[in-house]
């Protein structure tokens, strides 16, 4: 078995149809409205996908192990705000400190989530809905009516939010690096493989001696750090933060994962797939506009497409499972 085969089998799995769908949307819309497929148009889509994409990439890690984190929206906003506030309050603070603040805030929320879920055995859906409220409330209290505006944002973040390299926005480069590193971590480390095993069959995972609680805890903590990075990206992206930053994005993050082929039942999917899902979600939104679909229809169509994507994924999964069974029967 060659490495090339390994790679191609890995890609063949679930990300491929999403990429095809993405290409189809871009090409058809681009034919109708050429600016859509122009480099500016694509760059705009990539920028808009970055924060959700990075969050989806780290969320995929949790969904793969049958967990979920709905608190990411609140945490992302909180990080963005606190980093800005910190930089504004201590003018000339080194950029590394800003980054440190962001990652630390994300990590704290992740550790709290992880502890409650992994070591107290509480269901992640409930814990993270609760944390969604708690973090948002604390955030809102800290922020009050204060806004973080462009001049308060650390310069490197502003640069991050506006610059690009070879036409690819820095923001998306960050999301891509994040998604690729999660994908590689999950694919090439024993730690990552354990997450797939846990999500695929939690009881069997215990039986083969995988430390499920520890893996869960670390995954949430790691996801917290990624959320911190997403908060930095959010701040760089808009050069602005206030008490409503990041409000309600958690559902888009989950949607991106689902569209990107991360099975909500666990065990299947990649972070890169989740990022592609985020890009596809954003592309559809832009495409609907570029095709002249009324603003009022856009959300409805996006929702319908999301339902379709879930249905399609399931139908494909059932089909391929059936095909495998049939092949086995023929062999036997």
């Amino acid at each position, binding site marked *: 078995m060659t490495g090339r085969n390994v790679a191609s089998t890995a890609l063949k799995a679930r990300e491929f149809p999403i990429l095809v769908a993405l290409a189809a949307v871009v090409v058809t819309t681009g034919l109708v409205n050429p600016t859509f497929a122009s480099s500016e148009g694509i760059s705009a889509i990539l920028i808009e996908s970055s924060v959700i994409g990075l969050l989806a990439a780290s969320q995929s890690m949790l969904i793969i192990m049958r967990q979920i984190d709905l608190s990411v929206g609140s945490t992302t906003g909180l990080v963005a705000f606190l980093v800005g506030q910190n930089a504004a309050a201590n003018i000339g603070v080194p950029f590394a400190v800003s980054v440190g603040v962001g990652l630390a805030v994300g990590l704290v929320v992740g550790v709290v989530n992880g502890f409650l879920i992994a070591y107290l055995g509480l269901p992640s859906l409930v814990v993270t809905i609760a*944390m*969604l*409220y708690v973090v948002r*409330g604390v955030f*809102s209290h800290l922020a009050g009516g204060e806004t973080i505006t462009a001049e308060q944002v650390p310069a490197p973040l502003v640069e991050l939010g506006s610059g690009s390299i070879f036409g690819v926005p820095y923001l998306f480069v960050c999301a891509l690096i994040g998604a690729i590193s999660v994908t590689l971590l999950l694919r090439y480390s024993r730690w990552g493989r354990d997450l797939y095993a846990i999500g695929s069959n939690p009881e069997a995972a215990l039986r083969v001696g995988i430390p499920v609680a520890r893996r869960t805890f670390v995954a949430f903590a790691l996801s917290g750090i990624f959320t911190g990075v997403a908060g930095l990206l959010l701040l760089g992206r808009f050069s602005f933060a206030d008490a409503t930053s990041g409000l309600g994005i958690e*559902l888009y993050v989950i949607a991106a994962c689902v569209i990107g082929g991360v099975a909500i039942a666990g065990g299947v999917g990649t972070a890169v797939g989740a990022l592609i899902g985020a890009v596809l979600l954003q592309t559809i939104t832009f495409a609907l506009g570029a095709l002249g679909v009324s603003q*009022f229809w856009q959300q409805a169509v996006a*929702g319908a497409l*999301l339902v379709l994507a879930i249905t399609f994924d399931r139908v494909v999964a059932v089909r391929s499972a059936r095909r495998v069974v049939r092949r086995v029967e023929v062999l036997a």
Partner: protein
Amino acid sequence: MMALQRLRLTAWDRGIVLLLILTLLFGGMSSELFLTGDNLNFVISDVSEVLLIAFPMALLIIVRDIDLSVASSLTLASAVIGITYEATLSMPIAVVAGLATGSLCGLVNGLLVTKLGLSSLAVTIGTLALYRGLCFVLLGDMPISSLPMEWTDLAFYPIGSTFLPWSVVLLALFGALFWYLLHGTRFGRWCYAIGQGEEAAAYSGIPVDRVRLLLFVMTGFMAGLAGLVYTLRFASASPDGAMGYELIVIAAVLFGGVAIAGGIGTMWGVIAAVLVWGASRSLLQLAGFDANALVIVSGLLLLVSVAIPQLISRLREQLGHRSPRGGNPTRGEASLPSGNEVVHPSPAGAGHDQGSN
């Protein structure tokens, strides 16, 4: 306590009911404004929509499903009520159309979940966006507020000379109905059974998918009804109404002792939980806390509601009691007698009757 015991509440539900009583007592003592008819009227009105949806949501979570699209269904029903009224000038027709819309939303969710075998979490995240989008399609940027006074007055004036809002009629009617459904009928036993073991339920001749489908339709219907109350209460139909209610409903149901893993929960707990939530919000507000504090308290209540039973069970394990279930033994609808043990170590089964009648 004896009276409560006769109601056959489990430890958690008793705790919630006790918490409700304490909240009311504490509220009455700490602020003379709290227990006024006026304020109670407001508190009840304020929780009406959440409570109406919480009734069926409790059943849905007990069978291990979930519906995140309820707030969008509510708003869609509200939009349809507004539009139908504008078109027909007949409120009865509009109400029927609204309830039908809600039920249809539920039916679509239910069919996708039961017929295609999709995860209800994923499906209803999708329909959450879809139904909300349809609200904007229907109403665009024009909220409808030309509703007949004789209907909006229902939401405005209390019943006769009492302080109770008219929505109490719906709350009492459907509260009793869903209580009966869950605790007094075969259907309710089926719900618990499906949540405790779907396969065993199928092997017991329970039409599992039909029950689940019906629950989704009920949830949709109740979201539609909540949409009616919402429309009348705010005398308008707007596409961006009830944002975020889905998480409030789910949080309240879980706070009421329904286990997210299914099979456990009571209607008493859910009703008490929603009322505690509403009362404590009002209390905090009257005490001068700002909106941020309310948000934090909502989250903490939810966290505490899952953490405490878990900690109790850990403690019991350490004290050498055998926990009947890995999860949260004190919250067992099913493990009623073990619930008794938590509060009264005396032998259970003192002849009290199951099902709170």
